[in-house]
């Protein structure tokens, strides 16, 4: 993996490119890693994947623990690794244990020998050596070291322990690491600025290709986030990429970008899709039709619409007029509303395709703002636009 920063905007926000050995096209950052279940997007089958914008959609986040449900590392290895097993030869795969959906860190059971997770096949204690066995069999392009992730409400002592362990496991993982694959050192520290700094400083000393920032989206308030993020990114060397998990909403992504984060997970899209929500917000945050907002916009909070809402029963328009995704090119809101009503899986497939497409477009808009030096303005406009929407909605409520 190669990474280079190409442009800065307003201090920390940066645009760059990631280049992966098996995929000839550079992928521009900031960008979204598509969340997966066992290596494939939740509802988008592999033959529909190429309909998503390329190369933006070519980074997938994979949780190694998913494969423990039925596949041994030996079988994965015999299959030739994940790229081969999944038939995703020109995709970049980033292995991270946290998936926020089915494999949640179970910090109470984590101990000095390994990290504990609640998974579909029960609670698992993963030691660095086992974790590295998985990574070796999977041969991902990028992998994060094993972390002891804790929520913000644990004691200072427990939070300190989590930093100590994460740094120790980082050394263990690096010592056991196979050839190939970019190592991303895990950074934790909860909502304690001092611990975040200590962890980032330790990890920055190690020989890693990038950084994985964990412990976010686990109870910290949105207001305390910029200080925590800036503390970390100020310490990290500029030339290496930074991947974060746990920031999902558009506003949260913008916070991360403002602090110099390059790669984001997309669990947010999964939750929207399951709920029947489709993203509709204008990609630059400014809605030209602001004044046209009417009471009839039920089922919408102006960033997304709830396709289950009865107003869409006869709506023969696409989710977003002018959207060039497979879903909007082929299907109406009325059809998706019907599929949701009768619990047909195609609903999730179509919604996931649109939402992924839409969010990739949002990231593209962010990159363009950075490259033109206007990120701060873009960020402010987006937040104000959202605030106005909420205000208008409140007036009409």
């Amino acid at each position: 993996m190669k990474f280079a920063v190409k442009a800065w905007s307003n201090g920390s926000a940066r645009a760059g490119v990631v280049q992966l050995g098996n995929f000839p096209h550079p992928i521009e950052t900031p960008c979204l890693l598509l969340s997966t279940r066992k290596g494939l997007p939740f509802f988008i089958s592999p033959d529909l994947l190429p309909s998503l914008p390329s190369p933006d959609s070519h980074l997938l986040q994979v949780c190694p623990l998913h494969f423990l449900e039925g596949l041994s590392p030996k079988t994965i290895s015999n299959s030739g690794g994940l790229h081969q097993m999944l038939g995703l030869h020109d995709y970049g795969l980033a292995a991270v244990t946290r998936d926020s959906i089915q494999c949640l860190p179970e910090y109470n059971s984590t101990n000095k020998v390994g990290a504990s997770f609640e998974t579909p096949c029960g609670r698992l204690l993963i030691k660095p050596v086992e974790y590295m066995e998985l990574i070796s069999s999977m041969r991902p392009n990028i992998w994060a070291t094993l972390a002891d992730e804790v929520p913000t409400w644990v004691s200072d002592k427990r939070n300190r322990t989590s930093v100590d362990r994460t740094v120790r496991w980082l050394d263990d993982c690096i010592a056991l690491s196979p050839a190939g694959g970019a190592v991303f050192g895990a950074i934790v520290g909860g909502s304690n600025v001092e611990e975040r700094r200590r962890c980032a400083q330790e990890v920055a000393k190690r020989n890693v290709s990038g950084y994985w920032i964990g412990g976010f989206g686990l109870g910290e308030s949105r207001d305390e986030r910029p200080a925590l993020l800036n503390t970390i990114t100020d310490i990290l060397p500029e030339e290496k990429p930074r991947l974060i998990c746990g920031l999902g909403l558009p506003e949260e992504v913008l916070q991360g970008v403002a602090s110099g984060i390059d790669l984001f997970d997309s669990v947010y899209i999964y939750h929207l899709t399951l709920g029947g929500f489709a993203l509709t917000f204008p990609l630059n945050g400014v809605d030209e039709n602001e004044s046209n907002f009417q009471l009839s916009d039920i089922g919408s909070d102006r960033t997304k619409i709830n396709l289950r809402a009865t107003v869409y029963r006869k709506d023969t328009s696409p989710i977003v007029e002018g959207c060039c995704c497979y879903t909007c090119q082929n299907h109406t809101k009325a059809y998706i509303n019907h599929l949701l009503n009768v619990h047909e899986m195609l609903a999730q497939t179509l919604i996931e395709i649109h939402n992924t497409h839409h969010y990739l477009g949002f990231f593209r808009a962010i990159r363009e703002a950075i490259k033109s030096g206007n990120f701060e303005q873009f960020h402010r406009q987006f937040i104000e636009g959202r605030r106005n929407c909420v205000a208008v909605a409140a007036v009409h409520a």
Partner: protein
Amino acid sequence: MALRFEILGRFNRARAAQLTLPHFVCQTPLFMPVGTQGTIKGLATNQLEEIGCQIILGNTYHLALRPTSELIDELGGLHQFMNWPRALLTDSGGFQMVSLLHLADITEKGVTFQSPVDGKPMLLTPEESIQIQNRIGADIIMALDDVVKTTITGPRIEEAMYRTLRWIDRCIAAHKRPHEQNLFGIVQGGLDPVLRDICVRGLVDRNLPGYAIGGLAGGESKDSFWRVVAQCTAALPEDKPRYVMGVGYPLDIVVCSALGADMYDCVYPTRTARFGTALVPEGVLKLKHNAMADDTRPIDPTCACMVCRTYSRAYIHCLVTKDAMGSQLLSYHNLYYMMKLSRDLHTSIIEGRFPEFVCNFLRMMFPKGDVPEWVCNAMEVAGIDISSCCSPLSSSQD
């Protein structure tokens, strides 16, 4: 009549034809996957086209409940609603009611049932069934018939057969779009050859665009099953398509095609996928089985589908019955298998090598030569020599 049926090739009773429907030119024999609610198990319509689906079946009963036939009509018909450019077929709704609802009761007026929405008694008449199907707008619509379990015997069978004949006239009279939609009549009569004969003759008199053989695949013996199919296909007109309803096991399709049937539908390929079973030339492959966990071969090494080209049995094993993607991928493969089977039947008949195809099919499925006796009997009637794939023991029993 809104179809054209041209026979392109024959082998004895078997035929390969081109069926031109308002929305698609189909090649028969053909299998129709069941898309109950206007979709098939997570598959996008472009995937269904890629798999080679020619006609999709929609269930009138389900569609009439949600999103309702009025809404489908208002939004331009089912083709437009689900964005499916190829052909569609809807059933009458009667069978679904009788099989899904405990309180369905059939009288001369129609099928009385308890509304699943508010519990009130409702009535589906032949006129209404056709009206609903006219609104949905499928290329082929089915007459409302009096459905009786094949395992029932006695006067009820006779009553149902005569009622089906009386209702066909009401269906024909109610049909408002005969130039855009083809109304198929359904042959009833249980396992009684006399009743089946009366029903076939009655329906043929009405000169319908096509005919279905109903009341089968309901638990009758395989021997009774093929004999009814053989009798009906022999009596139905040559120049009209023949559809055996609810039939979907690959072996049954091969036998029925040998006997001169053209169309089939069944939920089997997608339903069995949901339980982790793949259709393969040898029969079935149970992906849930622990032996699959380290098997790095494709589901079917001879299959050219996207799933077999990409994934190992081990990976599918890890997905099936746990993740949505598992049943999606297996459904894809199973439907591909059925479409390939349809294509193979069609081309082998046209190319004059139908008996070889049947023998190879049977040899794969019964490598020990233990071809079931009913298959041997049916093939004899079909005039197809399968002695080369039957073991000496079983052929001496014939």
